[in-house]
């Protein structure tokens, strides 16, 4: 059952060395205030799983700039030059994964699957060291599940049972990551009473959510 807590209490569960999954796509739908708190308390040696590392200057990018992360699993790092700089200098271990593969690896972890088979990456360096299977004459790569200790999500609306509703393209990885971590924390713009969201409109079932954090009004992250 989801619990409504203060920002500091929720993020106190994020410890040095943990694997952290963060929703968002180039800052859109990223839990900016949760990320700022992770940075503020000086978290170190995180393994970060996210689509990207934001745009230099936004909350997501600060995880890299403030050197909270020692290992990164992402699909694209071109919008945050600091990530490439630390990677080239050998200070950040970066693993790049095709986007459709990463999201299915996360979904597989949350759905209790032992992996997924994808044609993406066949004939490229992505296939190196991976098992290949031929199904109905088509070659696939076996990609393994990806889990985290903590997932940090962003949602537009929640009821106090943790049921989440997203807004426009801010949904992206959030609903998948909600299923794939031991502890799931959602930053939410608007928190309403139980019963105020129609069950048909819920996108992420509340049973996946451990902590709800009310997003504070000031706009911190920028897009575009």
């Amino acid at each position: 059952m989801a619990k409504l807590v203060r920002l500091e209490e929720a993020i106190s569960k994020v410890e040095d060395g943990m694997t952290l999954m963060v929703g968002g796509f180039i800052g859109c739908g990223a839990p900016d205030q949760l990320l700022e708190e992770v940075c503020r308390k000086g978290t170190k040696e995180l393994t970060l799983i996210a689509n990207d590392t934001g745009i230099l200057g936004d909350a997501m990018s600060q995880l890299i700039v403030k050197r909270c992360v020692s290992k990164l699993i992402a699909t694209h790092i071109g919008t945050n030059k600091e990530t490439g700089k630390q990677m080239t200098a050998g200070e950040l271990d970066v693993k790049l994964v095709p986007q459709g593969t990463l999201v299915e690896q996360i979904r597989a972890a949350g759905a209790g699957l032992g992996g997924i088979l994808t044609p993406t990456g066949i004939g490229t360096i992505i296939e190196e060291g991976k098992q290949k299977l031929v199904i109905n004459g088509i070659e696939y790569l076996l990609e393994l599940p990806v889990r985290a200790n903590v997932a940090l999500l962003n949602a537009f609306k929640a009821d106090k049972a943790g049921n989440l509703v997203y807004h426009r393209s801010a949904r992206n990885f959030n609903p998948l990551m909600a299923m794939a971590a031991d502890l799931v924390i959602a930053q939410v713009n608007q928190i309403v009473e139980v019963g105020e969201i129609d069950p048909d409109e819920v996108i992420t079932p509340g049973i996946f959510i451990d902590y709800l954090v009310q997003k504070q009004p000031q706009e911190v992250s920028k897009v575009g």
Partner: protein
Amino acid sequence: MDKEARMEWLIKRVAKEFNDGDVVNLGIGMPTKVANALPEGIKIILQSENGFMGVGPAPEAGKEDPDTVNAGGQYASILPGGCCFDSATSFAIIRGGHVDATVLGALQVDEEGNLANWMVPGKLVPGMGGAMDLVVGAKRVIVAMEHMAKNGGFKVLKKCTLPLTAAKQVNLIITEMGVLEVTSKGLVLKEMAPGVTFEEVQACTEASLITPEKIAV
């Protein structure tokens, strides 16, 4: 034709490749230009791989919504009839063969339809994002790019030398010089831009080009 006119020809030529009702994913920077150049009577549905269908024009100043951005992170709009979904659904659409065509840029493309557009080892490593899935999953893969590299080097090669985005998936290459189709016999120069000759295109291409007549015979 000057360079600007040639690039305009390229955009218009890309826009001719779609059938009415096609679901299309267009590379960053191209959607507005191509959408504006669609022939009369052709409507396409644009997908944005970060999670929506029905990409519309960029919003007016002051009407931007931070929650509505395209796959390049720029403010976007969603047309009536559009819909939003998560990244798993988005890539089910892409990988599952529900996208009729994708148009992407390239660093290199070769006569077997191999594409390299996601990294230059030691120099540029932005990551592949959704490109590998798009190229594998879309029914038709169209590369739209300038025919030669900025340093004057070939981009249409016998064999790609950079790490591949996908093997043997490209169907068509459209540049400011012409339209090249990837066939089992090699690259067929189907069409040339106004004022461009076969010899000129060949001189700018490492791979040997075939004339359509040769294929017909």
